[in-house]
């Protein structure tokens, strides 16, 4: 299986705090990979390192054939590695359709595209994706007025609009009610299946991550604790001690 993201021996510390120590991770193309671990174990730091949000101290990060650990955020995003935020981030004073339109892919844009109009197909695609996440009826509302869960769905739709190759989701189900979570799992799987987007997901909800992911990495105290299939992770004593707890 082709590895689309390869993280090798990445170290990252903030002052005296070591957030990531010798982390190596492979994300396989076309699959859903999970990342779990207690709060403060360095999951989001790892995400930030991959998307170029901050420089890493040492190690390498490869996306396809590119070494991306020295590239800047926008450049990495345009290569096709996109992330969503733990604290949902949308363009809160614009309506949903505009949020979607401006999220369309920027990797092939020319200078003149800055001053072009949006073609009709793009608006249609935006509306279809909004319908996909169930926000079609609210598409002309100011996105900042939507509920938290709806904003989360909008952020997910915006990411799909960008047509990424890999999507890094930071706690996609946090703050979403149980009924909506089922719908979201379904949509994540379909994004993976039907749109062919590789997913790399941080998630605290074990039901969700065990259901979604084909392989899971578990971090604790900035170090790699364990990796394996959901079944193997569930049985791993180290993971149970550090994170899952005995049931």
């Amino acid at each position, binding site marked *: 299986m082709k590895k689309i993201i390869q993280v090798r021996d990445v170290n990252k510390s903030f002052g005296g705090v070591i957030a990531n120590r010798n982390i190596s991770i492979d994300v396989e193309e076309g699959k859903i990979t999970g990342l779990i671990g207690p709060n403060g174990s360095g999951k989001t730091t790892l995400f930030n390192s991959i*998307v170029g*949000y901050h420089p890493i101290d040492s190690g390498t990060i490869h996306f396809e054939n590119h070494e991306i650990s020295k590239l800047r*955020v*926008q450049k990495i*995003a*345009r290569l096709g590695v*996109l*992330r969503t*935020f733990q604290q949902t*981030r*949308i*363009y*809160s*004073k*614009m*309506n949903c359709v*505009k949020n979607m*339109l*401006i*999220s369309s*892919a*920027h*990797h092939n*844009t020319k200078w003149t*595209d*800055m*001053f*072009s*109009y*949006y073609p009709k197909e793009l608006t249609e695609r935006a509306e*279809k994706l909004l*319908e*996909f996440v169930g926000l*079609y*009826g*609210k*598409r*002309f*509302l*100011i996105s900042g007025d939507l509920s938290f869960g709806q904003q989360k769905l909008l952020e997910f739709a*915006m990411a799909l609009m*960008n047509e990424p190759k890999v999507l890094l989701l930071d706690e996609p189900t946090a703050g979403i009610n149980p009924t909506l979570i089922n719908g979201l799992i379904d949509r994540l799987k*379909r994004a993976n299946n*039907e749109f062919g987007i590789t997913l790399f997901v941080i998630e605290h909800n074990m039901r969700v991550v065990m259901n979604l992911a084909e392989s899971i990495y578990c971090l604790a105290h900035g170090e790699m604790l364990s990796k394996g299939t959901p079944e193997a992770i569930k049985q791993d004593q180290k993971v149970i001690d550090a994170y899952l707890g005995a049931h």
Partner: protein
Amino acid sequence: MNIKLTKVIFYGSILLAGIFAPILFPAYTFQLALLWMMILFALTWDILGGQMGYNSLGNILFFGAGMYICTVVQIGMYYDVAEYTAHFGAVKVDFTSYQYFTGIATGLVVAAIACVIIAVIFGWIVFGLRGPYFAIGTLGVAIAAGELVGAWDYVGGGGGISLPNYPGGPADREMFFYNLCFISAVCTFVFLKWLYSTRFKLALNAIRDDEEKAEAMGIHTNRYKTIAWSFSAFFLGISGGIFGNMTGFIEPLEVAFPTVTFGIFMVLMVLLGGKGTLWGPVIGAVIFHLIKELTWTYLLGWQWVALGALIIINVVYFQQGIMGWAQEKWPELFGITLDETNSGTEEKILS
């Protein structure tokens, strides 16, 4: 009546008013010219301050730079600038009408282009700053520019420059500059109306709402920021060149880089009218200019107090501005509607 016809009548009547106002009220020609200039100020400030959320207090830099560049080019085409600006008056200044008009035309073009270049250079420096730091940083640049020009003898230093005399009568002169102001303000409006219908506006709005998100989505944020500032600079440079010639005498602190008057007015007009809208700055500029002229006429002595009170009321109780208030009151007029007619099912969508 259909919408298109309403629009034609609406814009037509504004244009007609613009053309005939100085003819009907010749005594107010200078005031009306100033009003168009205020509209231009507000419109150009709103590109960054409203649409992009970068509150610049230093846009007046381009106004002053445009003014000086235009003047120097105008004079430099036919005279030696250093001799012209020397305080002892070494050269006899006499511009033929051909020299005058070619000078002003070339001057305005050069001023506009030079201001764009200045915007790109300064943008590269100040766009590293965000929020209040950007505001203070740009303010510093504008004030520094005024002081630097004041110390530069080639352009007359603090003593300023008298501009070439208009080759014609005072009434013609007023009409000429009125028309320049009118045309440049209308051009700015039309340009922005087009610009705000393209992707460009959405990118600016995205930067305003969440710049980090915009970066994470791969938007070329620096490119957009620099170009947006260049547009501001382009039109402000032209307005500076016109204003310098209109007043007939320029000097660095009060005329060219008036950070505490025009520099602040352009912010206030936008806040009053409503940030981030096309019409807000225009409405704000008109109302502000009216209030300002009325208080200057009828409350003389208290005019700055009245203006200060207006600022406080505006900022404390009326932050959204007139257009923002209208949008809250009548959201449907601005297209903010709930559409419950869900078309099709999800199955259909993905096929």
